[in-house]
């Protein structure tokens, strides 16, 4: 059966799966009106919306792809807001005890030794882009630019650290929190990179009565608790 009317379809960045699945389950239990959520890369979702996908809500992992669909007038004017924030952290293997003070010109290259720094794709994936910006701002980018391993996404970067293939990695706090095999060794200062924002918007094809309960729900205290437990910060609209 395909998306019936009244059945809300949410297109969300893959990294939100745990939190949104939990919220959706709660909502299904409480109101019986669960959404159907399609998780994929923000890029894929944005393109699909462009191609007329039956999405009602779009939660992107970065601003670029939301801008992309907004420029094409595919979201309902005024419905866009910044839903979640996140932090960028430096992770190492769980057994490491040291902490790293992340500050301008900190000795990242030395800490890597002969290993490599795991990041998400620095030109393509939001976490990678933020990480690169932070390293540039802190002045350590030139010393590690050639020492990167760029994974397809944050999770894959995390796996590299968890498996010991890379001694250090830059990932979201929300991802690091759930991975027992890694330990956060340092958190990037918020000012070192553009704010990490997960914007949400209703698509222009969505009906208001279908989406507005979800806007409300995503902003509810219950939702906030779930998001925060996953390591996200809930931003004020």
């Amino acid at each position, binding site marked *: 059966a395909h998306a019936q009317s009244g059945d809300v379809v949410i297109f969300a960045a893959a990294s939100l799966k*745990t939190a949104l699945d939990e919220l959706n389950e709660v909502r299904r239990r409480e109101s019986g009106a669960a959404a159907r959520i399609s998780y994929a890369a923000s890029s*894929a979702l944005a393109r699909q919306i462009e191609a007329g996908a039956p999405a009602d809500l779009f939660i992107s992992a970065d601003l670029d792809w939301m801008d992309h669909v907004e420029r094409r007038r595919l979201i309902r004017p005024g419905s866009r807001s910044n839903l979640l924030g996140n932090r960028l952290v430096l992770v190492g293997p769980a057994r490491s005890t040291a902490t790293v003070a992340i500050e301008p010109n900190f000795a990242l290259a030395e800490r890597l030794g002969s290993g490599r720094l795991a990041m998400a794709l620095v030109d393509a994936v939001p976490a990678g882009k933020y990480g690169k910006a932070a390293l540039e701002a802190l002045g350590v980018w030139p010393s590690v630019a050639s020492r990167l391993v760029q994974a397809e*996404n944050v*999770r894959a970067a*995390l796996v590299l650290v968890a498996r010991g293939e890379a001694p250090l990695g830059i990932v979201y706090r929300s991802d690091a*929190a759930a991975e027992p095999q890694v330990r956060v060794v340092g958190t990037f200062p918020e000012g070192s990179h553009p704010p990490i924002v997960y914007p949400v918007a209703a698509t222009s094809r969505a009906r208001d009565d279908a989406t507005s309960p979800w806007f409300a729900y995503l902003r509810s205290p219950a939702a906030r608790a779930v998001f925060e437990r996953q390591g996200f910060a809930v931003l004020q609209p």
Partner: protein
Amino acid sequence: MIDFTPDELSAIRLSLRVALAATIATLPIGLAVALLLARVEFWGKSLLTVLVHLPLVLPPVVTGYVLLLLFGRQGPIGAFLADHLGIVFAFRWTGAALACAVMGFPLMVRAIRLSIEMVDRRLETAAGTLGAHPLWVFATVTLPLILPGIVAGMILTFAKALGEFGATITFVSNIPGETQTLPVAIYTLTQIPGGDPAALRLTLVSVAISVVALLASELVARRILNRTVAL
């Protein structure tokens, strides 16, 4: 017995449906294209060859994107099919099947073509002299003789469909119950912290399905080959 969540169950069912549909739908077209490539000389044959292999050469994401552009609701083919035949691929399980079919197509064509090229054509002419129209010759001689290739092509396409996610997720997204096939579900699970055990479960399901399919195909293949053993 493992307990599956409703989402898992629906992904399993969907994946089976998609893989079967992709395999069955690809067969006649794959057969026709393989015949064309193996038997007919025509202008643009190289072009067709390249076209057939493209899904293999292109990153699946690109294939998925191309499908989205062509078969999406706004795409030229998608719009035409939706308007005139009522066939919609966009964000439907049919789209997932289409993506898998396209991805499996080169495998199907190659396997069948290979076996067509190895057929002893003198048997076909023999059938012709006995009064069989070329179409009958194809049905009663060529087709049975290339069965091993057809079985191989089908099993490759089926297996590919069980594992295909790049083009699928790019084309029809990841809508539970509609386009969330097993590989897409697995992929999604690998994207979240702590998703690994669940991903492993589904991977094993995937493997189990393929084992059944492979064993069945081996049985069929063995029966077919039995008839040509000689000293």
